[in-house]
């Protein structure tokens, strides 16, 4: 059979041009890689059929629909569906472009192979090479689809909502439409409307204070207990260690809800006990006073969290080589000196990355706040912002979404948290085994 393609590599331009013209055309026409060619062509044909709907979705993404109060609710434009569909369409287009690039590259590679072999592929070869490359494609498709639809698209969506007015009462589909508003939400929260801005600043400040103290108390509490357990000569050490781990093993929903009831201002057990013992006359509003509630929240978090750091510090201490202690003892170091100059620095060095990890964890520690206080007590701006005295940004996002339906503000806060946490997250990841040992 006559094949006009030169064997000396000069035909590359021609092959690439054909490949660019239509996906898979080069495979079919020149390289006789029939199976792959047909697959690529099928993809392009599929997308060509989609063009009208892709175009419509993209236009919808820009306009987000127009208000149609004259129509019944079910037939009105639903801006949120338009937004999601638009984002999905863009993602699909990116997938298409990627596939196109892959197909052109594959054609070029196929041509080089052809020059080497001096003949086009047979049907059998085409079938078997495609099959051998099928495994990664088949294996990755489920995870790729899941990540795309339930991780990537939601993230882009959230970021986009921050630039719309998607909020109750006037812009909730399907009754009404949503519009792009640019940076208006950022302006309101960061320096516009009095109660929103002051609420945001208050919650953000408390979030940082909370994360700082929650991390430090747990870290040093755990370290202190671990050292005491190691240095003491009490026989019951394993028993105490077991008790101290218990809070960490109890699911936080359970333990926090229990504390919430024990600390209840009017009929909580702690107040009733203290009153029965005549230590206090009037109930203490443990979770009712803004300042006291904040202190209590940090203390209860210490209850829940010190066991984790105790375990880690214990692990780090046992990992320290015995030779060092032996050497120190021979040099005449006292037990305190060994602790101060050998054990502590080593443990601190090893667990330091965990402090930062724990800090970022606490910034987003929904359970510790939501189940214990639910964000209460109410403060000055609570009626408008719904954020209480102990609310941190995450629990506030939750309230804005579920109760107030202010999706736009919730998204702005989520975007801001991300911008602040991203450097920490990168740092965390650089500490992990996955990063250090993994080759990209």
């Amino acid at each position, binding site marked *: 059979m006559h094949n006009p393609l030169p064997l000396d590599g000069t035909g590359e331009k021609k092959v690439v041009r054909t490949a660019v013209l239509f996906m898979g055309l080069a495979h079919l026409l020149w390289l006789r890689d029939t199976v792959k060619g047909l697959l690529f062509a099928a993809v392009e044909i599929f997308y060509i059929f989609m063009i009208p709907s892709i175009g419509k979705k993209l236009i919808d993404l820009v306009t987000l629909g127009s208000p149609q109060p004259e129509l019944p609710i079910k037939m009105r434009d639903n801006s949120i569906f338009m937004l999601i569909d638009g984002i999905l369409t863009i993602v699909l287009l990116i997938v298409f472009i990627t596939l196109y690039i892959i197909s052109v590259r594959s054609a070029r590679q196929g041509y080089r192979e052809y020059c080497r072999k001096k003949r086009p592929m047979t049907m059998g070869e085409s079938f078997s090479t495609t099959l051998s490359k099928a495994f990664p494609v088949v294996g990755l498709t489920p995870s790729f689809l899941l990540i795309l639809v339930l991780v990537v698209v939601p993230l882009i969506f959230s970021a986009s909502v921050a630039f719309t007015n998607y909020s109750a009462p006037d812009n909730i589909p399907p009754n009404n439409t949503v519009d792009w508003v640019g940076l208006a939400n950022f302006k309101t929260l960061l320096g516009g409307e009095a109660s929103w801005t002051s609420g945001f600043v208050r919650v953000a400040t408390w979030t940082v204070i909370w994360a700082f103290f929650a991390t430090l108390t747990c870290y040093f509490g755990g370290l202190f207990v671990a050292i005491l357990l190691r240095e003491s000569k009490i026989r*019951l050490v394993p028993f105490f260690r077991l008790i101290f781990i218990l809070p960490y093993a109890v699911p936080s929903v359970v333990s926090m809800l229990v504390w919430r009831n024990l600390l209840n201002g009017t009929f909580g057990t702690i107040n009733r006990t203290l009153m029965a013992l005549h230590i206090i006359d009037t109930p203490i509003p443990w979770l009712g006073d803004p300042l006291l509630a904040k202190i209590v929240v940090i203390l209860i978090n210490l209850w829940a969290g010190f066991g984790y750091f105790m375990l880690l510090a214990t692990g780090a201490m046992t990992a320290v080589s015995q030779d060092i202690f032996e050497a120190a003892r021979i040099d005449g170091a006292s037990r305190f000196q060994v602790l101060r100059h050998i054990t502590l620095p080593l443990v601190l060095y090893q667990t330091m990355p965990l402090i930062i990890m724990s800090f970022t964890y606490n910034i987003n520690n929904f359970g510790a706040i939501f189940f214990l206080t639910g964000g209460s007590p109410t403060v000055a701006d609570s009626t408008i912002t719904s954020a209480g005295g102990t609310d941190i940004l995450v629990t506030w996002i939750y309230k804005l979404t579920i109760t107030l339906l202010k*999706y736009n503000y919730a998204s702005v806060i989520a975007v801001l948290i991300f911008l602040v946490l991203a450097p920490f997250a990168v740092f965390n990841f650089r500490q992990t085994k996955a990063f250090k040992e993994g080759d990209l």
Partner: protein
Amino acid sequence: MKDTLKKRKNYRVIEEINTTITMIIFIIISLFVLYPLVYVVSAAFSPGTGIASVNIIPFGDGFTAKHFVRLFTETLYGRWFLNTLYIATSTSLLTVLITSIAAYAYSRFNFSLKKPFLMSYLILQIFPSFVGMVAIYVILLRINGLDTLWGLVLVYVAGNLPYNTWLVKNYMDTVSRNLDEAARIDGAGHFRIFFSIMLPVAKPVISFLAITSFTAPWMDYIFPRMVLRSVEKQTLALGLFGFVTDKKNEFTTFAAGSLIVAIPFIIFFLLSQRFMVNSFSGAAVKE
């Protein structure tokens, strides 16, 4: 001679004081730690309903098992338990299957865009999952996944995929390629190699993955609250939370229900404590 004796005696006194102080500290911490736990157990068996009616002395009101009976007869506790078990099991199985096969592909094959994909996983895993909450709601609404258990399972599986894939891929990278090479010479296909060689060898990291993805859904609150609406589709965390909302206060029933979930967790945790801490720190931080 006398001097050293005196010194030794002094030393022993100091030692004893130290031990006593440590002991006191330990007892105080233990009381602080055990107080709420003892209280849950006592409330679970106490006859009253609300927190206000529970005696301030643990086990001071006598002993009854009626809350446990009530949980299974008058509330949907059994249903919630089964729902949660279903979600946890499916999440665990799907996570293991999808993650390990993707990790195998990343570890053993070269294909176009492998590096950009892996890089984007890294970037994706730094976002907390609640960021996309509203969008996940709308997407589930569009694929009829709202108020279904499988919808929630998909959310859990997808949310942890990027990080888990890295974790398993890195483990597989350390497994010698001679093994699969030998199998390939013997004529085994990729699927065969994956199931009969790679999976057994990667057992430690796979079981870690299975355990963490099984335990996580038990006490999650945000996503079930958002996805599951009807009463008979609730999970344990939602149901338990419902007992102690501001509207009703059934603390004793809550305590009984919590006890049933928490005890297996505690036993399992104490048994696997060493293994878990090692894997946690091992997976998270390199010494």
